[in-house]
């Protein structure tokens, strides 16, 4: 089943941005251990709304870890608005694809980023951006 691409395996073996950001501006968490996947996403966002840093912690399969890593890479330097638009298919594409059964694991990364951004808006009191 696990016919991962070389890029997925590389990302799994060398994940970027693992860890926590102690003074994060937004933290998002999705999934549950019962489902076999949890992702916690930490974002550091500059005053002008740029994602300066992103870190993750993931409990999950190879696809979950690889997409967490890749997604954090992809949003760094983006504006919050652009980061919020990241879709799982963009992440999957960057990884040269995922086995069909694994697509559902890849949606978590984008969801976790969305949740972290939501948290960021909430903290800022920016209610208009809350979903």
């Amino acid at each position, binding site marked *: 089943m696990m016919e991962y691409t070389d890029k997925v*395996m590389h990302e799994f073996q060398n994940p970027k941005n693992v860890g926590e950001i102690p003074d994060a501006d937004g933290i998002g*968490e999705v*999934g*549950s251990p*019962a489902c*076999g996947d949890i992702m916690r996403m930490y974002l550091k966002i500059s005053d002008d709304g740029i994602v300066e840093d992103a870190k993750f*912690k*993931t409990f999950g399969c190879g696809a*979950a870890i690889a997409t967490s890593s890749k997604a954090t890479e992809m949003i760094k330097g983006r504006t919050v608005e652009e980061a919020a638009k990241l879709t799982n298919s963009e992440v999957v594409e960057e990884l040269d694809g995922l086995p069909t059964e694994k697509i559902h694991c890849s949606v978590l990364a984008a969801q976790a980023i969305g*949740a972290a951004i939501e948290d960021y808006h909430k903290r800022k009191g920016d209610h208009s951006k809350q979903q």
Partner: protein
Amino acid sequence: MKRIYLDNAATTPVDERVLKEMLPYFCEKFGNPSAVYTEAHEAKFAIEAARLQVAKAINADPKDVYFTSGGSESDNWALKGVAFKNRAKGNHIITTAIEHHAILHTCEFLEKEGFDITYLPVDDQGLISLDDLKAAIRDDTILVSVMFANNEIGTIEPIEAIANVVKEKGIIFHSDAVQALGNIPIDVKKLNVDMMSFSSHKIYGPKGVGALYIRKGVPIEPLIHGGAQERRRRASTENVAGIVGFGKAAEIASEELEDNMAHLKALRDALIKGVLGKIPQVRLNGHPVKRLPGNANFCFDYIEGESILLSLDLIGVAGSSGSACTSGSLDPSHVLLAIGLPAGVAHGSLRLTIGRHTTMDEIHYVVDNLVEIIERLRKMSPIDAQSPIDDAVYHH
């Protein structure tokens, strides 16, 4: 990198001695065993010799051994064959919550066909209780099926005691012994079973062949209807080469059983001791003593099984997991849930099954590397002893 194969419960390589016996039956001795001419006889003799080899390995009358295409077919046949044939007597079947899917999904089908199935629970080590069994038996119970040894956690059920309870009531008793063959002694007469399933590729024989032991007199409908092969009970031109291979594999397995068990046990115990001793927050699943000699099954808290498997694969080690992500389903192993593990923990399971070719050096290599792998993955995990997360479902 030399690979280390620790998934022997899933499948085993064909033994060179087995392949050697099979080879003449592809291009040369290819005759249809049911025919009249000379080519047919050598094929037929080869099949009967293999039947004798399998029969000897389980102390059966050779006439009671029927060749199939594998363990799954044997399981399907045993259950559906008895169910359809004995419907007039009753429609109740008893099995356990930890059977292989070949049994459980067959039961689900039979439920749709109007049969009533009781799934016996197991304790936290995977054993069923005889009292539960006795309480479940009804007047309309036509069949009880309890596996000999579990494929995931390795627990060995008390088949002889179970058979005696079942047979006393005049009910047909089947046991899936796919994992038992070649790993623990099997004597169908002493065990008092009516039917038993076997699979060749678990004992260094070829894939795509197996057997169902059916004690003389057990009323059973064929699963594969058609020609008169296998004493009119299992149609289809016989897989001669496969059957010959299975026969030889069974012969070797029973001849080398004691040595093999000692070898497996020594390595398994070293593996379990190493893992439990060197890695924190880990548990051994299954029974500590009543377990298959080659089976080790662990749960590592806070991490997921597939990521362990991938990490092991990268250092040359093949293992398996009850994680949903490796089962093709969304749920973790039904066996781990049945022994009471929370789903979150069950996702973090690792099964390492030792085989004939495994060495002590390999075990040491695996233990040492596993320490690092688990540590590394735990560092990535959002859960730990300080911030456990319970089984609530979050945003998705």
